[in-house]
């Protein structure tokens, strides 16, 4: 009596379906299938993690505006690289619908040869301090050579309260370290507005103004109210744009750049995945030419052969997609655990992105499998049977 497991019993429990035929075909070359799945998974993983990261980045921008209660940002043309004279603030304050106005400067500055950071120039009574927690030291004075560092930047620079920081030849005293706000605020620094104007040779210029509006008093919806005030500001101050917070978050140059990069890299990764499937399916059809001839001899129609091959390609795409979701989630989880990116990356994938990713995976499977499937379906049975 042998103690070998009866494999045939396990086989007998399974009912033969069209799907099962396709699955068995895929599994006959396990290494090749695994490598193909890796290719698709990397493509989908790149898509999920990069798009997820760019979305998180956008959410961080939105957080800046939402947490500070900003309704509109008044800028000239594009956001980061233009300036407006500080005196425009008085005109904004005089408008009936405007409650509060603060000028701001945003400047990307090399702090050391290796580290650059966004420097924010704010008045020391700016309402934008409200979401920040100064957990060490204090807020800077009105026009003192002082600086507050975000927690992440302070750690990167190894600076604490009381230390000096030399920025572009100017010595600034570190007076506070803060957390909260958006991730890139924690990776940045806050300075008195006049100090940053001098440091950046901006004279009386600022990057723009953040505006809080008075609440609507006529039952108007918040959205309509913001849009109406936007039009009033833009007509009163020709050449300037008043951009609602959500739009500012999604359309600023940083977000657009990251989103474009994410899209481009994802496309390349997905293309590689699609080529992997196309190669695998084409090779598989070539290797199975005789088998396709047998199926045709047994009465299988061209359309059934084509469907079988397309199903195999779709399974590869979809399984690769599911693994890719795991890869993407894992990548986001790693990014969320690294201090420098912890507050930007969120280790979760929205349902919509998951569905999108799986739809893309299925589509690349179908597209990549189309030509091999079409060719396989058109094989002459007798020619296929003669194939060696």
């Amino acid at each position: 009596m042998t103690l070998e497991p009866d494999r045939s019993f396990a086989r007998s429990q399974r009912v033969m379906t069209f799907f099962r035929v396709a699955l068995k075909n895929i599994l006959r070359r396990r290494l090749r299938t695994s490598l193909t799945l890796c290719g698709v998974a990397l493509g989908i993983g790149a898509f999920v993690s990069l798009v997820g990261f760019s979305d998180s980045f956008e959410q961080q921008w939105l957080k800046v505006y939402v947490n500070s209660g900003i309704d509109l940002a008044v800028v000239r043309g594009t956001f980061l690289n233009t300036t407006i004279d500080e005196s425009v603030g008085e005109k904004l304050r005089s408008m009936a619908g405007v409650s509060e106005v603060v000028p701001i400067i945003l400047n990307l500055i090399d702090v050391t040869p290796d580290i650059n950071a966004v420097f924010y120039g704010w008045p020391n009574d700016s309402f934008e301090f409200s979401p920040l927690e100064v957990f060490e030291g204090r807020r800077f004075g009105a026009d003192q050579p002082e600086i507050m560092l975000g927690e992440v930047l302070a750690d990167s620079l190894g600076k604490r309260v009381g230390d000096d920081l030399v920025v572009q030849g100017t010595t600034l005293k570190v007076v506070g370290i803060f957390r909260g706000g958006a991730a890139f605020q924690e990776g940045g620094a806050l300075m008195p507005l006049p100090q940053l104007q001098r440091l950046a040779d901006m004279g009386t210029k600022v990057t723009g103004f953040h505006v809080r509006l008075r609440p609507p008093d006529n039952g108007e919806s918040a959205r309509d109210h913001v849009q109406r005030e936007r039009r009033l500001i833009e007509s009163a101050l020709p050449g300037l744009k008043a951009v609602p917070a959500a739009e500012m978050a999604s359309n600023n140059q940083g977000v657009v750049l990251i989103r474009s990069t994410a899209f481009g890299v994802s496309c390349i990764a997905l293309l590689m995945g699609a080529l992997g499937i196309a190669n695998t399916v084409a090779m598989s059809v070539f290797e199975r030419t005789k088998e396709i001839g047998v199926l045709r001899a047994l009465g299988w129609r061209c359309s059934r052969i084509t469907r079988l091959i397309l199903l195999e390609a779709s399974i590869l795409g979809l399984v690769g997609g599911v693994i890719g979701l795991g890869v993407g989630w894992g990548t986001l989880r790693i990014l969320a655990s690294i201090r420098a990116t912890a507050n930007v990356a969120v280790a979760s994938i929205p349902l919509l992105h998951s569905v999108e990713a799986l739809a893309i995976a299925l589509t690349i499977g179908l597209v990549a499998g189309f030509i091999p499937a079409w060719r396989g379906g058109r094989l002459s049975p007798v020619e296929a049977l003669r194939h060696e």
Partner: protein
Amino acid sequence: MNEFLLEASGLTKSYDNGRIQALRGVDLRVAAGEFLAISGPSGSGKSTLLHMLGGLDKPSSGDVLYRGRSLFHSLDLDAYRSERVGFVFQAFHLLATLTALENVQIPMFERKLSARQRQEKAEMLLIETGLGERLHHYPNELSAGERQRVAIARSLANDPEILLADEPTGNLDSENSARIMAQLSSIQAQRNMALIVVTHEEEIARRAQRGIRLSDGRVCLP
């Protein structure tokens, strides 16, 4: 109604721009329930003729009628192969990734049968061919004779009227050859099918009710 199941008339087949003539005007009639052997030396056109009778290959000229209707001009060849014809090949041509039971179900995918019905029918056919104990074995776990019996069971999956066997014993030893031919003869008699066997073995040809011999693409012995 036409008294012949299959009628081939003036079949020719040429390759390589006419330099190779596989068939040179073959006429043949096969009645329903008849056991016909097609013999001849290698390269005489036996398999080409069989492929045409089974709707796998088209003639350069001439036609094959199935119950009086042109195979290549009036009939759906896929449906003809699926519903009317069963094939048994010399090299068995079982799908390596499927078990015996699964292989037999393959032709039934073109019929409107549930997975359970397919499985039950395949099981019955394999039991009928003496493989009831080997249902869940893969081709590489079966002997050559067993593989050919799986192929025979597969050829019967859709209850064909015509069974076409191309050198069915070509890869078998004498014992298995005799067993396979006995099985084919028995199936043909029980089901009253037309059985057309291509062979170059005279012993097998003698088992048939009628035999023709091909030489250089022509029928030389009616």
